[in-house]
């Protein structure tokens, strides 16, 4: 089990934790959703990475759970201005899922049960920056927080950490996702306060 230390690229931790600009701290875990919560049984759940050539890499629930697991503890920042520090998760590093994926693509589009999508540069999913998580705070990830499994990409605003994720499409072109086509920033770095288009 890998232990992942919190923090953003060497940013020093002070006694009073530093928050990205415009954020406030919450002890709660607010539930945000753009639609009804999809019911996804684990026995039919699957996660598929589709490359730019159409090659598919597919995992069932049991196959995903059999992969090496990590337990990241990370700070999360929602674009609606709440931040939550030191959240504990368990899941599979995207590095593990991408191990055998042969791709020259620059862009990833995560797509989800329920129809949600969000786009990220592929580089932001690799090198220990992103996970497919199924456990929060030692418990099965509740459906309202994205269970059975969601993306966790804590260095970007939390809308990039797609709930109910079912796969990733890779491509040479950047394809804006659900919120990115509705005025939100394409990249979404909380430390640069990239909330809306043009920020």
């Amino acid at each position: 089990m890998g232990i992942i230390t919190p923090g953003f690229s060497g940013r020093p931790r002070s006694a009073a934790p530093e928050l990205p600009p415009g954020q406030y701290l919450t002890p709660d875990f607010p539930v945000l959703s753009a639609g009804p919560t999809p019911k996804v049984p684990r026995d039919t759940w699957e996660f598929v990475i589709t490359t730019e050539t159409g090659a598919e890499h597919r995992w069932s629930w049991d196959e995903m759970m059999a992969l090496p697991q990590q337990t990241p503890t990370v700070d999360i920042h929602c674009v609606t201005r709440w931040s939550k520090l030191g959240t504990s998760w368990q899941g599979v590093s995207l590095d593990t899922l991408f191990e055998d994926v042969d791709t020259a693509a620059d862009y990833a589009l995560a797509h989800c049960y329920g129809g949600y999508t969000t786009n990220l540069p592929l580089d932001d999913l690799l090198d220990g920056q992103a996970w497919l998580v199924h456990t929060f705070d030692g418990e099965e990830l509740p459906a309202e927080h994205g269970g059975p499994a969601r993306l966790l990409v804590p260095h970007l605003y939390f809308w990039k950490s797609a709930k109910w994720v079912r796969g990733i499409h890779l491509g040479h072109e950047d394809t804006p996702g659900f919120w990115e086509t509705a005025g939100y920033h394409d990249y979404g770095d909380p430390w640069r306060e990239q909330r809306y288009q043009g920020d």
Partner: protein
Amino acid sequence: MTTLPYVDGNMLDGPLGEVFAVDMSTATGRCAHCGATGPVAALRVYSHAPGLVARCPTCTEVMMRLVRAPERAFLDLRGTALLQLPMPQVPAGG
């Protein structure tokens, strides 16, 4: 399992009234996905989100998204095929 509640489209009066100078409470919209036509007030609005997401009550697909930034609003209507708005009477013979 908890699921987030939605509210009805009457809640859009304020946010859309900020964008349109017409009374949206009696507007009707046709869903671009399933073709159902109904009052904007009957849409299912998910508001616990980074923006307002209004879904068709017939097929639950997204008909409208409204994002309010501090000095801008973004309105995405690609899920609405046709919006019918009540307007003041045009003077006859014009």
